[in-house]
């Protein structure tokens, strides 16, 4: 019989941040959008106080229009606060010099479509006053990192959305920044690219870098973020460690393998005897992401038609088989 495993939700390996340096600090940050005549249109952000510490992945979470993007733009100095302040590396957000240590991946990759990937990275490298040799090396490294070697000489106008994101990520990393700000990093990416993006983000944290990201893809945030701030209608609704926020204190989770029905019955009785309430006893389901990634991995290892699982409808299976056969024949 296998040993039972009691698992809490996944705990990030980072220690609790107490004495670490504050990278971003917003003080009573507010932003009101006004129209041409100065009349108030939207209160996009109301008195936001957050601190992002060095080495953590901080997530800004919220529905559309909740003020995430506004916060990021204020931090970058693309917008000026109506009141309050933003300090980045102890400098005011409106100062250009802070940008030496920042990498920014915008919501959509706002890049010059008439440049090739290599020219794009070279251009942004020049903006950091990098020497020719250093720039060349860095461009090659990054193109390799984001896997665009095959398309480095193609103009960005020919790129797919995913490829654009990768170039965007590469340009954000060109200066080896200490703080990386990612605006919706996984939006519009397929699951593989999403996984890669998440791995890259985690990898950055391992290098000791600070990451601030905003997203409404909750699963992604849950996977990578150490701490999150949840915004709604411009107000901070929740702030804390992901593990603390998501931990359900009064529910215990038991994972076990190879239990017979009798054993399950016995466990249920045991719980009852101890005054607990059995909520469910069931086979766990894998996540769609896991399923998808498994299939793709398998397909890369053994190209060709895949025999579908019996769970799928027999009609579709037949149709797929037919298609696969056609594919084989051709």
């Amino acid at each position: 019989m296998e040993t039972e495993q009691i698992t809490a939700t996944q705990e990030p390996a980072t220690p609790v941040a107490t004495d670490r340096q504050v990278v971003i600090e917003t003080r009573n940050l507010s932003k009101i959008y006004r129209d041409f005549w100065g009349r108030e249109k939207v209160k996009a952000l109301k008195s936001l106080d957050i601190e992002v510490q060095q080495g953590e992945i901080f997530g800004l979470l919220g529905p559309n229009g909740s003020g995430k993007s506004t916060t990021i733009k204020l931090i970058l100095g693309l917008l000026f606060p109506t009141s309050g302040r933003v300090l980045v590396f102890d400098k005011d957000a409106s100062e250009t010099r802070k940008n030496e240590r920042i990498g920014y991946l915008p919501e959509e990759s706002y890049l010059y479509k008439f440049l090739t990937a290599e020219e794009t990275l070279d251009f942004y490298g020049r903006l950091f006053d990098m020497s020719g040799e250093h720039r060349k090396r860095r461009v090659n490294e990054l193109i390799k990192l984001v896997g665009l070697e095959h398309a480095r000489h193609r103009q960005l106008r020919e790129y797919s959305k995913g490829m654009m994101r990768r170039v965007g990520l590469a340009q954000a990393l060109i200066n080896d920044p200490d703080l990386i700000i990612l605006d919706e990093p996984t939006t519009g990416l397929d699951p593989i690219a999403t996984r890669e993006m998440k791995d890259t983000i985690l990898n950055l944290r391992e290098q000791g870098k600070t990451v601030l990201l905003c997203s409404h893809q909750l699963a992604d945030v849950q996977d990578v973020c150490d701490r999150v701030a949840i915004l709604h209608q411009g107000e901070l609704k929740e702030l804390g460690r992901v593990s603390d926020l998501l931990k359900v204190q009064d529910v215990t989770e038991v994972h076990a393998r190879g239990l017979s029905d009798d054993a399950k019955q016995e466990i249920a009785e045991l719980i009852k005897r101890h005054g607990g309430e059995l909520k469910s006893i069931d086979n766990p389901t894998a996540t769609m992401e896991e399923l998808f990634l498994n299939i793709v991995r398998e397909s890369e290892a053994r190209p060709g038609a895949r025999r579908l699982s019996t769970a799928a409808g027999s009609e579709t299976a037949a149709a797929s088989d037919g298609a696969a056969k056609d594919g084989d024949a051709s």
Partner: protein
Amino acid sequence: MTLQPEDFWSYSEWLLRPDAFLQSAILQGIVLAILAVLIGLIIGYLLAAARKGPSEGFYSVARVVRDLFVFDLPGTSPARVYALGRLAFKEAIRRRVLIVAGIFVVGLLFAGWYLNPNSDDPARLYISFVLTATNYLILMLALFISAFSLPADIQNRTLYTIVTKPVRATEIVLGRVLGFVAVGTCLLVPMGVASYFFVTRGLQHDHAGIEEIEKVPDSSGQGFVYVGKTTYDRNHFHTFTLFEDEEGNLEGVTNIARGHQHIITRKQGSDDYVIERPLPLTARVPAYGDLYFLDRTGQRTESGIDAGYEQRKGGYGSAGLERLIGRTSEAKRIEFGYVEGGSLGAGIFTFPNVTEAKYVEDIPLQLNLRAYRAHKGKIDRKLRGTITLRNPDSGAVTNARTFEVNEYQVDDYRIPLVLPGNDGENNRDLNVFEDLVTDEGTLQIELRCLDRGQYLGMTKGDVFLKPQETSFAWNLTKAYISIWLQMVMVISFGVMFSTFLNGSVAMLMTFVCVLLGFAAEGIYDVRHFIDSNQSMGGGPIESLIRIAKQDAMTTELDVDALTSKVVKGADTAIIYSMDAIATSLPNLPKMLGTAEYAASGFDIFGSLLGRHITTTLAYFLVAFFVSYFCLKTREIAA
């Protein structure tokens, strides 16, 4: 081409105006710069105060000014400016802007069909055509590429990824301007080369041969010369005189027809006359003298006789700030002074720096005089005048040499270095440099009119010595440099407006600035008429009323007294403010004027080009700082 007094100013005279500092360019520049800074600070403060309150607004303005001098100017990196400039350049090139050069060349290929082959001066026609075409094409292009680029980057948000790098606002502005200037230069160079070949090739032609030739005794009566004329080709023929050298070869130069000459030769023993291609185009480098007049009794005066409507063409000209405060109303435009024939009246030109080194063989004198016939006289004969050289110190004077006046074309005379005359005591042959030029190197030339009751008109710019010629290619290059400077100006303004306006509005504003620059002289004139109380149509509202009522512009405005007062008051206010605006804008037509120099075959003065370069630089700097503040204080993501 009649030069205005200000065209004669040297660079330092223009910059400082020693006698009239209020007219000086440097004062105008400084006042404009201070005004720009003040207005900028006030507007900036008002906007900031409205957003953040009075004291916080003050700090934010102060912070921007501090940032400029403490961080952004010293932190501006040439490498980043280069990168941004290269990007702007690539953007324009990948948008296929270079097609414009192709269109220009194609235009040139077809232009030959439309240029009048019967023109008296085809060189002028060709040169002014290519220069005007290039000028407008380039300015239009500069307008488009500069006004739309930055707003497009803000709209596509490509600017987000740039301003989140350590890029200064100074670098963004400089990069844009330099990138677009590079694009323009890449267009101008091929256009210039194409123009050069278009003009030189277009003027090339052959004459089929000699129409008639005759051997006649020469003026000394001892030898013979050959006189004849060429065949009629390309709507003209030339007359010529050939001289025989010791070996029996004939050689000579034709007269000037349609602005050019040919060399004709015949080898000894051969029957074939060789008519060479037209002599290459050159640019005259004139040396001007000072002009004063003698009236009909021989008394010295500063202006000649007014033959009608000469003095009234007054106006402010571009008197700089002096005009703005309404101080000058003296005529700024040149007028012809006339000399009466058969009297003691004369026009006397004093030329400085006449040295042997400059005039080796002879002294080339060029005249472009006006003839005014007060009575019919002998209508088939041209007016006649005399040229006399005179030494004001010793009183030596040459015998008067008679000439005929060809109106509206330049008469070319070569004064030999030895002339018969009187040295004050005896009649003898006078040497120009020994007897006629004073110790300070000045030479006086006296022009009189011979025909009694007729008048000869002259200005300072119309009688000049021609110590040297420069090549046409270099002169065309200078004209192109002038176009290039105008382009830099338009680009600077376009980029400036595009930092706070959207693309089409920015283009419109730049266009309005260019237009106001072009209309400046007209605005000055209207102001002059208002100031001097002359009824010349009045300001915009009055003109509109006159158009509606179909009134002539010199009559009194036909409305009741009160309306007239209101209309005139409003017009004065409008014209004064337009004047102020036009004064603060670059005077592009002045720069466009260099094309006229090139077309008339005059070397474009170095001082003129120097003035244009200084002006362009000054406006570029103003536009640069305005752009910086606008870009720095705007929310890129708003």
